[in-house]
């Protein structure tokens, strides 16, 4: 049992950190620019595909650096020549722009790499068991993923709290108009944040693409979860996104192991449900089957009872 709990915690941590890498950029973009970037998960996918392609030619290690840089540059271009152009037509235009962009990226990936998954593998240098705890191995690659994601968190934290640009970004998170009035180059900061956010998503793609599966549907599958993280964590709060990521990771990982249903719960209180009736399916659904919908349920509850999220600083 202890072994199960320790490894489930590790799994939760890993999944949570991956989610955080994806959502940290989105939460920055969303709270600064007010743009719900529907294409954010697409940049995650691009990161994975670029890393795959680069690793075919020159190996995984250069890909780890190059792919996020390329995607970050692409993101900056998208902001400079796409979003900034439609910005004057308001938030709806920006939203539609990112939705269109998500489709565009997905179809381009289909055209270039095909509709099937690509063979993006964990590098041989990391394909061994790092250590064995009780009877379970922890693979070196997962340790590596943890190291990368934790160091990314530390670096991001230092940039935001210890540098001048970080201070401007922080100020723009809560008081965008005020920062602009002080004469800072807010559009430039926007471009930087958008590019940076995209490259963080791409970094998640580089290390997540071979751990999970690199396929054209990967963006559509992770996209909605990332929004849940942003909403649950709260607008403008990186710490909130961090807590929400870990929370959702834990929720989904542990749900898999719980094989109790509503009828078991009621039986505990001495109530037995009849096996028939219209609701019979609802009574016997086990928690383990509800894993995929739990984050959304969580989001709905959060929106009802605490609309600004766990650590949100403002309502809108």
């Amino acid at each position, binding site marked *: 049992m202890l072994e199960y709990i320790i490894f489930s915690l590790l799994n939760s941590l890993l999944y949570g950190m991956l989610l955080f890498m994806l959502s940290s950029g989105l939460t920055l973009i969303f709270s600064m620019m007010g743009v719900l970037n529907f294409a954010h998960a697409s940049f995650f996918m691009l990161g994975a595909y670029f890393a795959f392609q680069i690793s075919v030619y020159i190996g995984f290690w250069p890909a780890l650096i190059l792919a996020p840089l390329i995607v970050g540059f692409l993101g900056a271009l998208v902001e400079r020549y796409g979003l900034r152009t439609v910005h004057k037509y308001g938030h709806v235009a920006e939203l539609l722009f990112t939705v269109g962009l998500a489709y565009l990226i997905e179809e381009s990936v289909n055209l270039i790499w095909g509709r099937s998954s690509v063979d993006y593998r964990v590098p041989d240098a990391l394909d061994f068991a790092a250590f064995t705890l009780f*009877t379970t191995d922890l693979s070196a690659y997962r340790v590596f993923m943890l190291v990368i994601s934790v160091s990314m968190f530390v670096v991001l934290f230092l940039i935001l709290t210890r540098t001048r640009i970080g201070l401007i970004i922080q100020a723009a998170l809560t008081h965008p108009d005020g920062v602009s009035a002080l004469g800072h180059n807010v559009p430039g900061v926007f471009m930087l944040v958008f590019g940076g956010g995209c490259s963080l998503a791409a970094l998640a793609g580089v290390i997540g693409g071979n751990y999970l599966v690199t396929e054209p549907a990967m963006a559509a599958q992770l996209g909605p979860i990332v929004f849940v993280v942003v909403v649950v964590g709260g607008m403008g709060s990186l710490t909130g996104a961090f807590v929400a990521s870990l929370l959702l990771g834990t929720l989904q990982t542990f749900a898999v192991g719980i094989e109790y249903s509503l009828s078991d719960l009621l039986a505990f209180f001495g109530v037995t449900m009849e096996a028939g009736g219209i609701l019979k399916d609802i009574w016997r659904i086990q928690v383990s089957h509800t894993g995929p919908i739990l984050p959304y349920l969580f989001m709905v509850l959060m929106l009802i009872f605490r609309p600004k999220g766990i650590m949100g600083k403002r309502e809108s």
Partner: protein
Amino acid sequence: MTFRKLCFILAGIAILSFAAGPATAADTIKLAYIDPLSGGFANVGDAGQKHFQYMADIINGRGGVLGKKIEIVPFDNKISAKESLIQLKNAIDQGIVFITQGNGSSVAGALIEAINKHNKRNPENPVLYFNYAAVTPAFTEEKCSFWHFRFDAHVDMKIAAITDYIKGRSDIKKIYLINQDYVFGHAVRDAAISMLKEKRPDIEIVGNTLHPLIKVKDFSPYIAKIQASGADAVITGNWGADQSLLVKSGKDSGLDVEWYTFYGGGLGSPAAIGAAGEGRLKQVTEWHNALSTEENQPADEKFYLGYQEKYSDGGRAPYYYGRIRTMMEMFVLALEKAGKAEPTAVAFALEDMQYDTPYGTVTMRGFDHQLIQPLYISTMTKVGTQGVKYDVENTGLGWKTDGRVEAEDTAMPSPCVMKRPKK
């Protein structure tokens, strides 16, 4: 260009392409292949299509059948039942009367119903459905249809083979069941529970998990659960990415269990488990790539190597579906026996047809349209040891037969009551 002009041009193109369609239809015998060619199961659909294409190449190389060539027409159903019905309609509109599909019993069930309905409404223009891999027992039992033929052993037959093997393995004491959460996975689970209870009542089923179909990308949480249960063996009917990712996670966690699988032998799963599969990964199939050497069948070896050369993508996706060869050969025989490419006549010709494969005679049972063929249980084994000659998916590991179940011993009774059209 004005909008109106554009409309005219588009209409013109549409009319032209309709006019061109039927002109080519008469020249070939078309087989519509409705399977996932995009999404998470795309690699599975793609492999199936290549198998059919390889068989079409061989048959056409012999001069075709009834003086015509066979043509495989692929349709992408995105593994959705709804999309499959649209593609079926599409195929019928193109004048195709022979359909094949294999992936997903949810899809197969929808196709059987739609084809029954179509044939009832259009008795003059029926279509015929060859199922090469959807193995929910009901399709040849209570839901059996004259218009459906199954060339794969169904779930109960395969689980019977697995549990017969486990019966003799007294070292297996705890078994974990993990399956996909849809009609097929449920059938595997139910059959495994009831047959284990009957054959090895001492075995404890320490876990029974259903997971969502093709949604799980990281099986580590499930593996942690299997690990915690202390299982000696896992029985799973998973296929495609659900199978390969499952064993990949198991390998990464150093999970030491025997895998009893339906589809562990191909479509990415051997490559995913790699060396960790040696002696652990087992499959129940009608064919595997070591049979030609084990039973000394050079012709089958040549057939296998021909595919390896032409369609295997450098050995990454070797020949896998032995039954597709059986199905296409029986299809050709039925066409010749019927003398025309007409579904009703072909269906009657297939009933009770026997065919000699390199590994024994198979029979298409007339009363429920279930193919009765020998089954093999095999284990992943290092090439060069114990007579293993060929590897799978460039892993350096191949298959070694643990046991063979004769065709007649796989047969199960069926409550099928079939409505037949007039001859």
